[in-house]
C-alpha cells in the first residue's frame, strides 16, 4: 500500500466520526464540503470512476425522494431541510466510498484487528464469508435450476428459495468452521499477524482534527 494513502483504520474512524455527526447536523454547506473533500480523496486514490458514478446514480432516487417529500410535506424552512436531507445522502455515500473503494475488505478488516484489536474470530469469519459471496450468488442460481429440474419454479420472491440458500450457507459455515479449526484457528488465541500497514502519528491527528473541525463548523458555527 502506498504510504501516501490514509490508513484503513483512520479512514474507518473518520467515516464513523463524521458520519455520526452528519446525522445530527443541520447544515447544507458542511455536507457539501464533506462531499467535495471525499471526492477529492477518491480522485487522488484513483478509485473506480465507473463504480462511483453507478453508486451515485443508485443513490439519486433516495436523495430525490427525501428532497421532494420535504418540499411537499415539510413544515418550516422546507427548502433548507430538503437540501440538508438530499445532500446528506451523498455525504454518507462518499464517506463510505473513501473506505470501501480505496481499500480491500481484507485490508480494512486486518487493519482494524491490528490497530483497534478487533477480534480475529470476527475478522476471519467475515473474510471467509466475503470470499464465499461469489459462491452464494452461484448457489442461488443452482438452487433455482435444481428446482426447475424437479418441475417447479422458485421465483425470486419465493421464501423457500432463500430458506434453501440459508440452509446451504449454514452447512458451509459448519464445514468451514471445522476446516479452520483443523488448520489451527483458535477463537480468542494469539496468532502471528503478517499483515503490516503504515500508521504514522500524524494520521491519528488528522482524524481527530477533521472530526473536531466538522463538529465546530456544524454545531457551533452552523452555516446554512
Amino acid at each position: 500500500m502506498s504510504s501516501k494513502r490514509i490508513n484503513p483504520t483512520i479512514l474507518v474512524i473518520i467515516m464513523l466520526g463524521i458520519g455520526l455527526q452528519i446525522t445530527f447536523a443541520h447544515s447544507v454547506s458542511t455536507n457539501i464540503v464533506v462531499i467535495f473533500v471525499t471526492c477529492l480523496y477518491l480522485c487522488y486514490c484513483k478509485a473506480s470512476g465507473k463504480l462511483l458514478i453507478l453508486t451515485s446514480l443508485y443513490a439519486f432516487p433516495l436523495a430525490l425522494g427525501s428532497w421532494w417529500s420535504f418540499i411537499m410535506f415539510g413544515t418550516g424552512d422546507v427548502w433548507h431541510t430538503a437540501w440538508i436531507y438530499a445532500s446528506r445522502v451523498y455525504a454518507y455515500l462518499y464517506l463510505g466510498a473513501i473506505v470501501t473503494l480505496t481499500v480491500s475488505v481484507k485490508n480494512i478488516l486486518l487493519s482494524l484487528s491490528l490497530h483497534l484489536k478487533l477480534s480475529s474470530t470476527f475478522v476471519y469469519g467475515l473474510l471467509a464469508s466475503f470470499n464465499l459471496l461469489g459462491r452464494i450468488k452461484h448457489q442461488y442460481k443452482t438452487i433455482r435450476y435444481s428446482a426447475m429440474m424437479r418441475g417447479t419454479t422458485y421465483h425470486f420472491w419465493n421464501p423457500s428459495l432463500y430458506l434453501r440458500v440459508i440452509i446451504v450457507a449454514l452447512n458451509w459455515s459448519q464445514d468451514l468452521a471445522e476446516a479452520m479449526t483443523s488448520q489451527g484457528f483458535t477463537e480468542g488465541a494469539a496468532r502471528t499477524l503478517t499483515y503490516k500497514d503504515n500508521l504514522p502519528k500524524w494520521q491519528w491527528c488528522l482524524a481527530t482534527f477533521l472530526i473536531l473541525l466538522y463538529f465546530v463548523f456544524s454545531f457551533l458555527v452552523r452555516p446554512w
Partner: protein
Amino acid sequence: MSISLKVEDLTFTYSIDSKPIFERLNFELPLNSFNLLIGPSGSGKSTIFKLMAGLYPQYSGIKNNGRILLNGQEIADIVPFERARHVAMLFQNPSRQFAMKTVFEQLVFALENIQYPAHLIEKRATEVLKKSNLWQFKDRILQTLSGGEQQRVALATVLVLDSSIIFLDEPFANIDNVSRLVILNELKQLQLTQHKTIFISDHDISNYNGLVDHLYEIKLSSQNLVELPLTELAKLPAQTKVTQKNLPDNAVFSWHNLSFHIGQRLLLSPNSLNIPKGYVGLLSGDNGIGKSTLFAAFSHQKKYSGNVLYNGKSSEKIRLRNWARTVANIFQNSSDQFIKLHADEELDFSQSNSLHSEYWTAQRIQDAVNKLDLIQVLKHVNYQLSGGQQKKLQALIILIMSQPVMLFDEPFAGLDLNSLENLLMLIKQTTKDLGLSTLIISHQRRGVVEHIDYELLMDEQTIKRLGEF
C-alpha cells in the same frame, strides 16, 4: 518428538435418541505408518476421523463414553493451534475448507494460526508450494480452482502446518487417477522421509497395494474398527476397459460446433457429436479438463458457442424451465440437488412431478430405496446424511424425474463397491426401460466400466468417442 493417538472405550452418537455409531471402540493409531480405512458409505469413516482430529464432539454429536488421547491428553481439551501441529485433516468437500481468497493467503493463514514466526512465514509457504508443484497457482483464487486442484491446495495447507498425523477423509473423490497416484506417492514419501503418520479413508482400494502398512475396516455389525490382512488389497480384479459395442444410430441428443472457455482458457474447441438413446456412456478425461463444464453447457448453466440439439432442433432459444425438463444435471455436489428438507419429501416430490409417473410406481420406488439401502434414513434431514447416502438419494430423485437426457457428475464418489453396483444397475435399468440418453463422469473406473456401453474421452480441447477414431 514422540507422539501417540489412542481411542479408549469410545461410544459416540449423533443424537440422544439414535443408536450409537460407535460402541466401546478401542483403537491405537500406529505411528510413522501409512494406513487405510475402508467401509461402506455411512459406516462412519468421516466420523471417526473427525473424532480423532478433535473436531467432534465440538462440532457435532455426543461422546457418551471413553477417551481420545493425543499424547495422553484428551484431544478435545487441546487448543486448536496446539493440536494442528500434531493432527491435521483434509476434508471430503474440497471447496469448503478455505477461509482465504487465494492459495498463498490460505497457507499464510494456516501458519499465522499456529503462531509461526512472522519473518519465516513467506519462506515456508513458498517452499511448500514449490515442493507440491503448486507455485504457479500461488495467486489463483481458490473458489475458481477445480475440485482436484483445491484438494491439492488443501494438502499443501496441511503440509505447511507440518502436522505429524494427517487424516485424509475421502480426499480423492474428485481427483483423476493420475493426480491421485502422484498424491499417494507424495504421501508415502512424507511418511518415509518425514515420519508422518498417514490415515486415509477411501472407498476405492486400488493402487494402495505396496503403499499401505495397515488396512482397517469399520464393521457395521460390531460398530468397531478391525484390522484386515493386507492381502485384501491384492484381491482386486484387473482394470478393465469399456468393451466396444455396435450401438444403434438413434441419437436424440447431440451438439454441433460446441465450444467454451473458462476465463481466458479454451476448454473445448468446436466439437460435434451425439449420444445414443437407451445406453449409458462414460465421459472420461483428466482433472480440470472441463468435463463438469461440458455438463454445465449442456444444461444451459454455462455460456458456450455452437449448438446443443435435441431431436435435431437447437436448444438455445428454449426457456431454462423447459430445458430443465429435457436435460438433467446430477451435480457433483449432492446437496445442491436437494430442494426439500427430508429424504422422503424429496422422493415424494419427484414422484408427483415425474415425467414417467407410470413407470415410477410406489412399488418401484420402494424397491429402489431398498436396493440403495436408504430405508433407515428416509426420515432424516438430507444434509445430515453421509456423503455416500446423499449421493444415492440424489441420483434416485433425479432418476425418478426421468428427463430424456441424464448427466451424472461423479455419482459414485465415496460409494463402496456394493452401493456403486446397485446404483449403476439402477441407472442402467432406467436408461434402458425409458430410452434415456445417459452420460456419466466418473474417476472411479473399477466396478463401473464393465457396465458401460460406450466411452467419450475429453482431451486436448476435444471430445471423441473411443474406438471410433
